[in-house]
């Protein structure tokens, strides 16, 4: 079973990475992550918003209400400088973890 820490880490990485491409609101973020990971990562409303609020409190992302072209108000999130700073080491850590796991599974198969 994947531990809560790992789950949280991947979720935060996913959100920060997707916001690197530009601002978006929660629903769009969830769709984008699902599409880009081909369904491997799925965020329900219940999983997404507590995390977004937590990340906002950390100062990694910033939400602001905006009115879209169809007149609907949506809270859009964008990366803050602190979020950008957080993203690079987080990426490195995860890349390292995946490399280590790949090595381990290769050794296990050999």
């Amino acid at each position, binding site marked *: 079973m994947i531990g809560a820490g790992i789950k949280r880490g991947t979720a935060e990485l996913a959100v920060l990475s997707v916001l690197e*491409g*530009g*601002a*978006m*609101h*929660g*629903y*769009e973020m969830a*769709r*984008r992550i699902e599409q880009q990971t081909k369904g491997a990562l799925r965020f*329900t*409303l*219940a999983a*997404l*918003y*507590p*995390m977004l*609020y*937590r990340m*906002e*409190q*950390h*100062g990694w992302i*910033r939400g*602001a*209400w*905006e009115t*879209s*072209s*169809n007149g*609907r*108000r*949506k*809270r*859009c999130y*964008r990366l803050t400088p602190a979020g950008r700073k957080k993203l690079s080491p987080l990426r490195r850590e995860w890349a390292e973890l995946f490399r280590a796991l790949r090595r381990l599974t290769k050794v296990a198969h050999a």
Partner: protein
Amino acid sequence: MPNWQELVRQHLSGLALDAAEKDEIHAELTAHLEESYEVFCAEGLPQREAVERTLVQVADWQDLQRKILIARRRKQPMQKRVHQLWIPGLLTMMLSTIFLIALQKLGFQPRLVGSGPNGILFYAPWLASLPFFGALGAYLSARGGGLLGTALLASVFPVLALTAVFLLMFPIDFVVERVIERPVDFGTVATDLLRDGIDWILVPGVALLAGGFLVHLLFNRHSWSNETAVG
């Protein structure tokens, strides 16, 4: 179609946050559910199934409410106020005061509008600088997560502090004059209050607020220019 707003309000009525924050969360989650439902409908799902698949996103509303509370309360209100109001406000006040002192040291004379003792003094270069200081206060507050009201409050912080000083100064002055048995001329006090209120509070306040509003407008425009994915 269910009333998503009512549904969210009912399920998350126990969110122990201030009213504005609670409304904001309700509105955001309502928008998510509405959009989710509409996309399911657009994909061809029957209405009932679209509702079910939308609702399945929240298995336990109580748990969601608890998690939102934990996430939102992480930063204590006091800490928030410090970052959104006190630091930007005090910095605005400090810098604008230092600039005024520097102007006085450099020999800039205030311009007198009106005549006699009731004339109003204006430090034109100082007044011209105030929108920048107001903008700085609002910018720092917004960066700290301050909403429009807090950001504007941070921008006019110097005049708020001055107002407090004035409000304290006049009763103290009144008491002192009573103690030294000097007759108090309420007409003079009222004129002084009005004159000082105009040249140290009202006019600088408007200048600071103009800067704060400008930052608010620029922030909004900036967010639009960065906008890529609002459907």
